[in-house]
């Protein structure tokens, strides 16, 4: 299964405080472990939300909101995409990650939807409709 691993923001990361050399090195070693275990698919760090934008939807209305955004602890500061056997394995790997921030911080793991998740409830017809829908939404 694929999981999205989200590193949550802190006041420091939102202020654009750069990690120390030690943390960079520790993170580098951890990433190397992920590569050698064959689970790392992608990952990157995000700049503070002060450099981000939001588009708010309300019916036909679209409003652009400039960062920074207030709810710091709910923001994302970085992400990985992993391929693991199950959530327990993802949790174990996250536990091995060095604390990505200076103070207390949080990493969230979210499984990515796969067709198999819907199990027997999905008939071939539904699967086909889903396929066609995805085909349309992916702009073909």
């Amino acid at each position, binding site marked *: 299964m694929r999981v999205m691993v989200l590193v949550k923001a802190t006041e420091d990361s939102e202020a654009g405080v750069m990690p120390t050399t030690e943390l960079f090195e520790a993170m580098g070693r951890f990433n190397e472990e992920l*590569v*050698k*275990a*064959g689970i790392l698919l992608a990952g990157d760090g995000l700049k503070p939300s002060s450099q981000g934008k939001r588009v708010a939807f309300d019916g036909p209305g679209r409003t652009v909101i400039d960062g920074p955004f207030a709810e710091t602890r709910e923001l994302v500061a970085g992400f990985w995409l992993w391929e693991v056997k199950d959530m*327990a394995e993802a949790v*174990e790997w996250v536990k091995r990650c060095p604390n990505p921030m200076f103070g207390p911080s949080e990493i969230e793991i979210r499984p990515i939807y796969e067709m198999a998740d819907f199990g027997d409830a999905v008939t071939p*017809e539904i*699967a086909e409709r889903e396929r066609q829908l995805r085909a349309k939404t992916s702009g073909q």
Partner: protein
Amino acid sequence: MAGSETHQAIEAIFRIERARLIAGLARMVRDVGLAEELAQDAFVTALSEWSRTGVPANPGAWLTATAKRRAIDLLRRSRMLARKHAEIGRDLSEEDEAGIAAIEAAMDDDVGDELLGLIFIACHPVLSREARVALTLRLIGGLTTDEIARAYLTSEATVAQRIVRAKKTLGKAGLSFEVPRGEERRDRLVSVLEVIYLIFNEGYSATAGEDLIRPALCAEARRLGRILAGLAPDEPEVFGLLAIMEIQASRLAARVGPQGDAIPLTEQNRALWDRFLIRRGLAALERAESLGGAAGPYALQAALAACHARALRAEETDWPRLASLYDILRSVTPSPVVDLNRAVAHSMAFGPEAGLVLVDEIDPAALPHYAPLPAAKGDFLFRAGRLSEARNHFELAAELSRNAREKAFLLGRAAACSV
């Protein structure tokens, strides 16, 4: 409740640590079977201890230390036995300690190297292909014999016996557990890549409705490929293989219709292709080429797959490039199937006559009872307007096909020749 959570966590830890643990132990005791047993023992110990005390801060180090201690005990006991038998005096105890020190040093060596060594051992050419596949899935992939049996549609007893025999063969061969170097490394790597690609293809050929463990082989093979890429980052063919697997896996959702029928590449809904995997595949191919491996058999096949992957619509396929890639592949890995695909590519690039010339160069005896051969020729003849000849070939292909849907498709094409 908490107990089952701990149990799950311990299992996940063991899955993460298992291959590395076995690899370190195998180099230490020079016996793959014993290494696996020692790792299993450490796991059982962990299960009972951690359920009481909680998981230690560094579970990997804990497992390694526990297994190592057990291995040293075992060695001491066998040395003691040997001493009693031989009735040699004190000298041996010094030798004993030296031996143990050497073992400890071996366990502290570069972990990545040990895992790579174990992969090379599991895929050693002294073993049969089936044995290499089973042992790789067992030792590196951590699949149970039951899972391997289900994946390969065979009995658990067969797989278990295959693995036992393989371990015995390895033991008798007295192999080095070091990562091979130079020319030997090149030859042995061929076997490793072959095993991984065999596992991938077994999974890829699985159809909907089959045991889920079969399609899971694709994911396992890709994981093995990524592990190998992490351990041997300078080997172009590793990245060539990785590129093929990523690009082929990108089509998993598009290659079968709602009724489970296979959809040919040119007719697949390309919107269903996983662009993320394609990007990863193209990046791996680029890496293979930048390492100077563009002419490697895996890199060439990846380049072929990439050609299709880059075309957002079938009409945009760069057939002249495919034709020239097949020209090269043919000289690197000559095979009548490559020749047939080459003929198809040339027919698409330069017209049906070009295809006919090339398909007639193939000795039909080299591809006996092979439906795609007359099917391709039928297609060239059809496009060249030679309808009655085309019909004969489609009918012959339908006769040879063992797949009911394909048979119906070919008979349909035969019928379309009588206008």
